[in-house]
């Protein structure tokens, strides 16, 4: 009986896939994968009839949604398998996620913060400890990711993806020699004024400035933070726009020439556009891990753990890595990847590089966090063109004078009318 159910479920999955796919040879490959990786039906059907909906809050462009017609629609697959509905929403930065959680009022079941944000949330008691008995697929995670510094013993988080930060550039605008010399300082090069995009979140932007200055990426020293902010202010006049996921659109359409961004998204973009290339500066960069967590206040913890387990399934983790381009910490999924991807040096830099040229963010002290935020807002609000400053007070003064004059005139008029 159970076998029959499995078969029906598999057929249903296959059917929905086949329907949503544009007729294509890739269909066959996808279909094969569906058949090979059977899921533990009994485990996944535990909440089937409870009509549960989980709120998943994830980064934009961070899950296969079937929109390209080739990959699976991950959330739909999960609902198909478990009967649990997914209310999927997105954010653009760790800080936005933090603000949304901290401001209260919205409760999520799944969030995917980065390393430093996870340790901050652990410190502020914002996360639920996970019950690993409910996440058997945790065994698929590579050993080097199972006891991370940001979450000792993996009590609160299961790694989802990892990657590095590098520079995405338009290879039609650079000679080979120029391209070879692209480093963080290129983002301060006057020649590219107006063609540079920059991170729209304080931590990543400060890291680049700190890297330029040769400071530790986790420095809490007020003076060093000020130096970095100054460097960023200096860069401001060269920056076309501060963006996050808008980068897909802008770099793809050739709106800008240079943009620091995450390796995974760069891979996706390079797949789509030939004019884009990516370089990880030798001088050093940030290594990040994004991991799945359950925030405090989740009402469907069991379902959320099921979702985490689902994300750790070999074929699902493979689909994620394949679609979003980020590096997978999932050993079983890594096995499935093409050798080409494993060796291109972007998604999976060699251990020597990771060891010597990358730094992981740690959570900063509250004071340093606050200082960085304030400096960031100040930097972004700083004015390049100053002539406006005088005009406005004058304008306002004129308004006040005009209103007073009118008030008096009206008063006089009314008096006249009375007599």
């Amino acid at each position: 009986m159970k076998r029959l159910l499995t078969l029906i479920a598999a057929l249903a999955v296959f059917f929905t896939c086949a329907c949503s796919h544009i007729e294509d040879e890739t269909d066959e490959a996808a279909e094969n994968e569906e058949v090979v990786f059977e899921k533990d039906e009994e485990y996944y059907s535990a909440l089937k009839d409870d009509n549960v909906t989980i709120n998943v809050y994830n980064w934009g462009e961070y899950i296969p949604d079937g929109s390209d017609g080739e990959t699976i629609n991950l959330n739909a697959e999960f609902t198909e398998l478990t009967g649990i509905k997914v209310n999927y929403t997105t954010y653009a930065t760790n800080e936005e996620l933090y603000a949304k959680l901290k401001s209260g009022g919205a409760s999520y079941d799944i969030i995917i913060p980065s390393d430093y944000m996870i340790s901050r949330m652990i410190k502020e008691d914002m996360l639920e400890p996970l019950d690993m008995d409910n996440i058997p697929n945790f065994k698929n995670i590579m050993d080097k990711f199972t006891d991370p510094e940001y979450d000792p013993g993996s009590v609160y988080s299961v790694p989802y993806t990892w990657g590095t930060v590098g520079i995405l550039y338009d290879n039609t605008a650079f000679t080979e020699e120029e391209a070879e010399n692209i480093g963080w300082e290129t983002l301060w090069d006057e020649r590219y004024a107006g063609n540079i995009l920059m991170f729209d979140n304080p931590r990543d932007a400060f890291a680049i400035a700190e890297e330029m200055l040769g400071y530790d990426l986790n420095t809490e020293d007020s003076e060093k933070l000020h130096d970095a902010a100054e460097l960023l202010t200096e860069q401001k006049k060269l920056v076309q726009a501060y963006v996050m996921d808008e980068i897909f659109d802008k770099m793809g359409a050739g709106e800008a020439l240079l943009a620091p961004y995450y390796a995974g998204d760069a891979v996706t973009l390079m797949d789509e556009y030939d004019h884009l290339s990516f370089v990880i500066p030798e001088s050093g960069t940030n290594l990040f891990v994004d991991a799945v967590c359950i925030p405090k206040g989740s009402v469907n913890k069991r379902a959320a753990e099921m979702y985490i387990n689902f994300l750790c399934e070999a074929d699902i983790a493979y689909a994620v890595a394949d679609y979003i381009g980020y590096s997978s910490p999932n050993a079983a999924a890594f096995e499935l990847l093409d050798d080409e991807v494993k060796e291109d040096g972007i998604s999976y830099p060699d251990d020597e590089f990771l060891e010597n040229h990358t730094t992981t963010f740690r959570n900063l002290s509250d004071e340093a966090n606050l200082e960085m935020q304030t400096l960031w807002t100040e930097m972004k609000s700083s004015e390049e063109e100053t002539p406006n400053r005088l005009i406005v007070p004058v304008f306002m003064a004129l308004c006040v004078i005009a209103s007073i004059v009118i008030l008096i005139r009206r008063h006089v008029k009314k008096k006249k009318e009375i007599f």
Partner: protein
Amino acid sequence: MKKNLSKLYLALVMLFLYAPIFVLIVFSFNTTKSRSVLSGFTFDWYIKLFHNELILSSLWNTIIVAVIASIGATILGAVAAVGINGMKRLPKTIVMQGTNIPIMNPEIVTGVSLMLLFVFFMVRMNLEMGFVTLIIAHITFDVPYVILNVMPRFRQMDPNLYEAAQDLGCNGASAFFKVVLPEIMPGIISGFLMSFTFSLDDFVVSYFTSGTTQTLPITIYSMTRRKVSPEINALSTIIFLVVVAVLVINNVIERRNLRKRGVIK
């Protein structure tokens, strides 16, 4: 000469107003994702749009919220208008000034202030923001428009009518329903329509009070912040067509009514 000049001016303003919209529409039929080069004609983005569950479910949410909020606001506002009309001058002025607050307050302040209120009480009652808070927020910014639409109707109405009806043997309630209500009905209806469109279109207040619920404007916002797909152009086209259709129908009905009245006169 002068006439041509004003025609030219009108045409220029129209160009300014419509050019962006028509560009959006044209590129919704483009085969590639390019926003400046036309490469072929396709309906693919429309098909994709209708398979996009996120958009469909947020559209559904938007409609539910708009319907409930505008009905709620209309009832609350119309009843309030009757009450306010019966007030003396001073309290009336005070209440009407208060009614102006949500209209004149910047939307972001309304949104933020409601968010603070909801969070403050929700956290204490272990609730979360969602449909209920969205509807409350929408009613709050809708009610003033209903009141402002209904109040002028009282001014236009002959105050003696109500008394005349009572003199002719109607009791208070039936005099109200038979005489007053028909008089203020056009105001109630336009207030309702206005609330409905404001609710459908609201982004700022919803953004701060929606919790995890996604309405269409919120979904559109997150779409514009990511990899932009021509689906968004397709969506704009459909919304534009719906708006045109509604306004044309509305205009036709209005004209017919005007003509009828003209005939009676």
